[in-house]
């Protein structure tokens, strides 16, 4: 399993068109000037996988996820992530698994779609267990957080291993 494609619409600094990234397997670099939107790409991945904490998405409130360069006109945020699932690592019988999350209207709830079909977030637990090392999210290191990990105290470190087991 790996991330094959990411489609971003109206999420943070991404505009009102489908911005697409087609990923290969292996080692991928995302680069560019300060303030260009690199961290927002990682935020978009986390958003599509159900991240619900505004702080983790680096905004004060969910409304701030709506692209706002042209004023608050925007009413839709949508991110789709497609996994290559040829090895059936995700318990879904398909070569590709696409998870879409969208929010309509500023105060709307999130809607989730799995391979185009509307689903309830609670049915995604198994899929999310595979792709995100819940609860510690140890496979996601946000900007500036890497040194914090080695400053964990010994109890916290034991708990990370304990939670996984």
């Amino acid at each position, binding site marked *: 399993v790996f991330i094959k494609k990411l489609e971003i619409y109206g999420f943070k600094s991404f505009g009102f068109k489908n911005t697409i990234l087609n990923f290969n397997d292996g080692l991928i670099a995302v680069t560019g000037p300060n303030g260009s939107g690199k961290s927002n790409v990682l935020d978009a991945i986390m958003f599509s996988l159900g991240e619900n904490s505004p702080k983790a998405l680096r905004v004060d409130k969910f409304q701030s996820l709506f692209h706002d360069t042209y004023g608050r006109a925007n009413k839709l945020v949508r991110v789709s992530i497609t996994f290559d699932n040829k090895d059936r690592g995700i318990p879904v019988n398909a070569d590709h698994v696409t998870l879409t999350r969208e929010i309509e209207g500023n105060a709307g709830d999130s809607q989730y779609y799995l391979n185009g079909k509307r689903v309830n977030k609670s049915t995604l637990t198994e899929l999310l267990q595979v792709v995100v090392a819940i609860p510690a999210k140890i496979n996601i290191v946000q900007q500036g957080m890497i040194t914090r990990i*080695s400053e964990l105290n010994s109890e916290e470190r034991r708990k990370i291993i304990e939670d996984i087991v």
Partner: protein
Amino acid sequence: KENMFMDAFLKVNQDINSTFSSVVGGNSWLELENQEDIFSAGVRLIVQFPGKPRRESTSLSGGEKTMAATIFLLALQAIKPSPFYLMDEIDAHLDAENTDRLSRILEERAQKNQIIMVTLKDSTISRVDQIFGVYPKNGVSQILKYKYPKRAESNKIPV
């Protein structure tokens, strides 16, 4: 429960040992604070850089902490495989030598798991399989994608 924990502990420890000593030199390992009653105390991460005394990970320098933390995180893979890693400018506080070591660690790991990392450093970029450039146009993020013949230093990024 204790057996399961110890089993996981030994696997992670083994991975930390082998990655740290092969790429950085010196050694790094996990220590139980209380062997008799594991869950009443914690787990220390000990690090010994080449030519230096052993230290707990909390009293290392900024760059040394980055190396110790990255190796620990990747070692957890031995007990909880993840299909991908997201890393945002983890090379920011590394000197040239450690930046190179980190690249080697990630290159090797990327054979098994996809790694998407944000970086501003040319030396890190020169060793990856695929590059995405992000740039702003009137406040809106645009994406540029280019192939990069691995290690072709001459192939500077089109801006």
